[in-house]
């Protein structure tokens, strides 16, 4: 049975800075020695540059995030220095933004009238729309640039939260 390479990547609430890759390849593998992982942002910035992912590890965590990003993750299955096969998948890791929005909600529980502030509410709504825009750009558009642009708008709001919220 031929070998079909594949992987999945997840970000967990517990450790927002980590993404965990899982090898979900199927079939009979050819001779392999290791895997290499590259994580690239829309502007070409490499969060991981050919990082080693040993064959013995079905899953591996990469501690590379500091904010919400849309990235292309490329995994190469190697035999020595030869790339036997590779796969690239676009992901949107946006839990940083959800946690920030959640912190706003928690503030509201102790100060319910906060939502009556028009500026506060419009900015929070815009924040969530940006999140959905980023997710949709990845899910339906395969568009890393639009996704990252939306996340960048949110990053600005987070960095200047005292002005926006």
């Amino acid at each position: 049975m031929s070998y079909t390479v594949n992987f999945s990547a997840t970000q967990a609430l517990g450790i927002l800075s980590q993404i965990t890759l899982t090898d979900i390849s199927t079939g009979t593998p050819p001779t392999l020695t290791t895997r290499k992982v590259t994580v690239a942002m829309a502007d070409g910035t490499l969060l991981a540059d050919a990082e080693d992912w040993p064959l013995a590890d079905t899953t591996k965590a990469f501690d590379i995030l500091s904010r919400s990003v849309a990235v292309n993750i490329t995994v190469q299955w190697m035999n020595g220095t030869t790339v036997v096969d590779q796969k690239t998948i676009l992901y949107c890791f946006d839990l940083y933004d959800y946690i920030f929005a959640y912190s706003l909600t928690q503030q509201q529980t102790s100060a319910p009238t906060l939502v009556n502030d028009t500026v506060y509410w419009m900015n929070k709504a815009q924040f969530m729309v940006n999140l959905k825009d980023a997710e949709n750009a990845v899910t339906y558009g395969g568009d890393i640039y639009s996704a990252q642009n939306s996340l960048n708008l949110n990053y600005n709001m987070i960095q200047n939260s005292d002005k926006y919220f």
Partner: protein
Amino acid sequence: MPTVSEILDIAAVSQYLASNDVAKGSLFGNPRLRPIVPSRIWVEKQIIQAIYDGDHNYDGLQEAADYLYAMLYHPAQASAIVNNSNGGSISPITPSIPTGIYPLVITAADMEIDGVTYNNPNIVGDNLMVFVQQYNEEWLYAPDFFQYTGSGIVIVAAGFDANNYGNIIIQKFNSP
């Protein structure tokens, strides 16, 4: 108070109820509630749903969900909609086998290439009689002229070939 999961389900319906009433208020010139209410519900629900999907037991999640519940529009009605299993149903219509096909007029072109076999699921199970133009001008019956098969009939009269005759009329008799 409802659980986080229940509140999220109720919030989805409440958002719809709020959107509906905002629309009705605009249509009839009688505002029922502030237009911002549906979007508020949507925003908070998205946040709590994302956290819940990541960790059902995330710190402070129930309190945040309770806050969402407190801001819902018509939560009791929304809860009744979510939990109501008697909202009515549409019984599927079972299509009936068409019965208005008789008398069925066929030719050799409708039969199998052997000139004696006719397959049609709509005639299976019916009592049939067959009239063949230019054959003997009589209604012909099973088992002497033809026999029933699981998919139609096969003409067993010796030497018969439908290609040598005109129309073949199949009629039902004494069948419900």
